[in-house]
């Protein structure tokens, strides 16, 4: 069974068909790329997949379960986590707390137990700290756990966002331009990290990216969007040599 199966997804804003008959099938453990020129509808697709927008028609199923039109929080609980194109961290919280917010639904105690510091508070908080530190270690952020998130350098903020997304224990991870604004060294490092996340957590990853080096370096399959349509789909090398794709990127 495919991890993510999207059939004929449509959404239009006014007269504009932002995403038009979008289809995609991603198998478990795949590293899949979603590319296309600016304004092609990539982020809109992410927003549809995570329930920020409700599709006009079409269906989305995650691991065989229909998640079409559900609320963002329910889709997250079902196992989809994401990062954002423009970083959205909890700026005033510490690095550790950012990840602990992600653990919110998997490590529970009630508000009353929290206020009156009952034994479960200490027990669960300890487990949360342990798990959060493990995740931070994966991304080399464990030394900075006390920093305010907004004080981290840009590259590390991106990593923290991925760590936070992973902390919700997803099956499918959506990365929206993870390498945006990174220098070549940071990008190379990020590629390693993404590959590592896939191997270590057995994660299925769908990513949007403009950096062709990253895309051709780690994505096994690609879907190219242009004006909301799927232009090409398939193995990375084949897609990137497709004349239509080249003309969409470089012009005729």
């Amino acid at each position: 069974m495919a991890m993510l199966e999207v059939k004929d997804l449509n959404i239009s804003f006014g007269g504009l068909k932002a995403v038009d008959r979008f289809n995609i099938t991603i198998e478990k453990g795949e590293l899949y790329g979603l590319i296309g020129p600016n304004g092609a509808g990539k982020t809109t697709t992410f927003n549809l997949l995570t329930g920020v927008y409700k599709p006009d028609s079409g269906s989305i199923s995650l691991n065989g379960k229909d998640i079409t039109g559900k609320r963002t929080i329910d889709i997250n609980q079902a196992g989809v986590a994401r990062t954002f194109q423009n970083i959205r961290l909890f700026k005033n919280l510490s690095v550790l707390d950012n990840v602990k917010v992600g653990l919110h639904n998997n490590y529970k105690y009630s508000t009353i137990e929290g206020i009156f510091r009952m034994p479960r508070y200490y027990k669960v908080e300890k487990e949360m700290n342990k798990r959060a530190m493990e995740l931070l270690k994966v991304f080399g952020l464990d030394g900075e756990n006390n920093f305010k998130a907004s004080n981290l350098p840009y590259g590390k903020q991106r990593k923290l966002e991925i760590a936070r997304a992973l902390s919700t224990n997803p099956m499918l991870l959506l990365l929206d331009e993870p390498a945006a604004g990174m220098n070549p060294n940071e990008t190379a490092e990020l590629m390693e990290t993404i590959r590592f996340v896939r191997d270590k957590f057995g994660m299925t990853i769908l990513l949007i990216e403009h950096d062709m080096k990253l895309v051709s370096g780690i994505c096994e399959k690609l879907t190219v969007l242009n004006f909301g349509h799927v232009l090409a789909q398939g193995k990375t090398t084949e897609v990137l040599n497709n004349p239509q794709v080249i003309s969409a990127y470089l012009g005729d």
Partner: protein
Amino acid sequence: MDRKKMKKSTRSSLITYAMVIAVYIIVEIMLNTGNITSLMSGLLVPLCVYVILAVSLNLTVGILGELSLGHAGFMCVGAFSGAFFTKVMAQAIPSVGLRFFFAILVGAAMAGLFGIIIGVPVLRLKGDYLAIVTLAFGEIIKNIVNVLYVGKDSTGLHFSTKDAVSLKLGEGGEVIINGAQGITGTPHAATFTIGIILIIITLFIIINLVNSRTGRAIMAVRDNLIAAESVGINITQYKLLAFAISAGLAGVAGVLYAHNLSTLTALPKNFGYNMSIMILVFVVLGGIGNIRGSVISAVILTLLPELLRGLNNYRMLMYAIVLIVMMIFNSSPKAIEFRARMMEKFNGFKKKGAA
């Protein structure tokens, strides 16, 4: 590393508790040795009321990050439901202290309930819009209380919004809430000691809430709605929870306030928007999100006008100026830059001193 951080937040809250207890001890000593004017001793309970209000509003403004201008309204709900309870239960619970204790619970519950009722429609709004709507709700609450007539006789409770006569009370009936004349004859159960205990309970609830799973979720909602939703935080639920707890604690302050007066009336002076804005000034002056700051600024801003009695007429003017200055100091980029520079200088100086 992690233990150090835990220690830091625990230490900070311990300092806050210690500060409150130290002030209590000093004031008690001064009271017992007669070193305090009657004017000041009359101010002690209101001081506790303002501190609780400031700390509880900080939960909405600082931790949840939503501007509310209706805090006096929730205080009003707490004050009237608490005083009402005390009057109605006069025979059922003869002990004044016990009645006061239950009145606090009733006041907190009622104000919390109003927080939920008002929060459901209102918390969909943000920023200025939310501020305006909460301001309106605060005024509505005050005005409804002003036309509310409730009486009690052998057949039970009677309600009216017209006048005391239309309650049609039976033999031996008593008007409890008499419209604009309010509630009279509430026992003076509020003391400075009880006020301090309530302050500590309020601090305990808010500080522990902030440093827990729920508090993190509330702050996540404040920092980034979309990201909070994307990691599975139920935004509506946590906004409402924070708002209701904040309202409930304002209700506690209201009950304390009501039991310090012989006549409780809903005037613009005590439950109007001026009061709401004054509480907001406490929060802004003390630093938005800074619990200890709220305590300190509430105390200073309450005492200052009394100490500068000659300037009393200019009190609201002074508040406005303080508010504007603090906002500039807190949020203008130039001021932030200046503060950062000063901090650096100070730290450098400290390091030099250590070496």
